[in-house]
């Protein structure tokens, strides 16, 4: 286990190094701190002095060294726009994004496993076909469009009444096609529960949850069908395997075959894909947060791009990179724990 961990950590370290070099390259080529510090009116001679003083004329390596040392100490510089340390800006925005990701992950896990397993066990049933059709439509709708449609349906409301409403039936059908609206679709609301530090949570009040629902569903909307299809496909393959046939020949109950023999083998590739998809999820938070004006890191990042707030962009990259690396390492670790064929050496047998 130790060897496995060390190997993973080495790998994570290399990835972080690459990210930091890229980040630094962006920082040193795109950001002009002098411009930000003193403005246009200061003469060129004074700028040169400042440049020398700040060490901007040093070699790339020296400057990178300084950047890396500062970064390791949690100092990523000042945001141009907020005029405060970028780490503090990130800290303020991180909890909102994390809550969104947690809520979406919950939705995905709770629905994808049972539905995927059901569709694999009963591949020909009407319900399975329904799930599969809905899921292919689901993966074809971009996240931001799902978000917009949810807003139209549940926040603004739809008044679609093609039937004459004189009779009860017409009214009923019209009601079926129309929606109320009124769900909150902007920001996180005011009824947040303070947990610790900068973390205010949406999870602990009804009002907070209503603000969370639409963004979380949007964020989950493309992953959920993806995982349903993945779990179904993997499980179908596992159910065809010799060891499942052998288990049947042993006279074991179907329940045990499905949920012990098949499910465990199904989840192995799903865990790996889950790790990769987490990265995609972070990308989708940018889209979702933009649509719902959810005050998280994604929205902050997009605004930083619009404002050319280079230090904040770079910090975001580093932090998101760190999150990816940490979660990927964790996912590998979990995979190693679940899969007995991955042993101490870290190589699959």
């Amino acid at each position, binding site marked *: 286990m130790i060897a496995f961990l060390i190997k993973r950590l080495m790998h994570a370290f290399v990835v972080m190094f690459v990210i930091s070099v890229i980040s630094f390259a962006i920082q040193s080529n795109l950001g002009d701190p002098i411009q930000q510090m003193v403005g246009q009116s200061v003469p060129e001679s004074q700028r040169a002095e400042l440049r020398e003083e700040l060490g901007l004329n040093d070699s790339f390596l020296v400057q990178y060294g300084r950047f890396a040392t500062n970064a390791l100490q949690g100092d990523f510089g000042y945001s141009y726009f907020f005029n405060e340390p970028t780490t503090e800006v990130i800290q303020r925005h991180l909890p909102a994004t994390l809550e969104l990701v947690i809520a979406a992950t919950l939705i995905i896990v709770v629905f994808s496993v049972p539905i995927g397993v059901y569709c694999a066990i009963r591949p020909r049933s009407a319900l399975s076909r329904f799930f599969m059709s809905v899921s*292919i439509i689901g993966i074809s709708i971009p996240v931001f469009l799902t978000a917009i449609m949810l807003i139209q349906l549940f926040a603004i409301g739809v008044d679609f009444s093609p039937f004459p409403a004189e009779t009860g039936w017409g009214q009923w059908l019209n009601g079926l096609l129309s929606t109320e609206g009124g769900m909150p679709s902007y920001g996180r609301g005011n009824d947040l529960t303070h947990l610790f530090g900068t973390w205010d949570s949406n999870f602990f009040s009804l009002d907070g949850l209503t603000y969370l629902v639409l963004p979380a569903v949007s964020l989950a909307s493309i992953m959920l069908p993806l995982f349903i299809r993945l779990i179904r496909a993997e499980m179908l393959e596992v159910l065809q395997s010799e060891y499942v046939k052998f288990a049947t020949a042993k006279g074991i109950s179907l329940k045990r075959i499905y949920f012990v023999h098949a499910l465990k083998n199904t989840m192995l590739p799903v865990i790996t894909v889950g790790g990769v998809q987490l990265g995609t999820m972070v990308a989708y938070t940018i889209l979702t947060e933009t649509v719902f004006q959810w005050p998280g890191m994604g929205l902050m990042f997009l605004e930083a791009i619009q404002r050319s707030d280079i230090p904040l962009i770079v910090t975001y990259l580093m932090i998101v990179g760190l999150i990816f690396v940490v979660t990927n390492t964790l996912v590998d670790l979990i995979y190693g724990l679940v899969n007995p064929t991955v042993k101490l050496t870290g190589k699959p047998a």
Partner: protein
Amino acid sequence: MTTTTATTPSRWKRFRNSYLVYSFKRDWIAQFCLAIFLCILLGAVCAPWLAPMDPYDLTQINILNSELPPIWIDGADALFPLGTDAQGRDLLSTILYGARVSLIIGFGAVMLQALIGVTVGLLAGYLGGRIDAFLMRLADIQLSFSTLMVAIIVGALFKAVFGGAVYSDYAVWLLVLIIGLAEWPQYARTVRASVLAERSKEYVDAARVMGYRDRRIMFRHILPNTLSPIFVISTVQIANAIISEAALSFLGLGMPETQPSLGSLIKSGFDYLQSGSWWITLIPGAVLVVLVLVVNLLGDWLRDVMNPRLYKG
């Protein structure tokens, strides 16, 4: 083992008798999807002739016509069957032109990805060793960041480097470049996997024993055998590229509003959703969904029929 007989049928005849065509004839969903896809493609290609007005031509736009609803809602103008957007442009025309832009970027980006990815995959799979390890590590890292994330970052950087105006001018090419650069690992991994599978087969050994050069073995012997997985992921990748373009445009990192794609149409319409003008955003949205859906369904069908070894994960 079948031996090749003296009279090989023509390519077209072989294609017509293939299992691909056979199962296409029996699958109405695939036929339906292909029909719809061809309709959209035709509409997009012929947009300059089909569209009632030219959305790029400012002289044709009258701001007084802004936010007119589609024809089936009260207050519509028969001149604008799908209504108008906030600038008074005919929505049908902008959608036709928008689909054109989306498809150009989608196909262009996929061609670029395939070029990079297939080359890398072939090299990695055939040469093996350190080069393989390095290239695949690179692909892994990039994939773990998700292709969309990479596209957003690269897009943001390009925008910062070139500035908004220049970026807008070259947006089509930059988007092709961004999405192409972001998604090559998919191809590389798939191609590498099938190269590894093919390389161990005897005909490759035979070719090597006969003294063929590596390059010839790779392109004449191995590549043709990896075509079916390439073909299958290409359909999925076109759908992905169209979605990625739409996402980038929606974030303001893609096509400018003066030369809109489906994504930037959705974005520009989103601001008017609250005021009740849902059609500006949802009609282009529906077109985008239908386009992506039929491509995905065709991809599904192809995968079922060709059943290639795809790289999982």
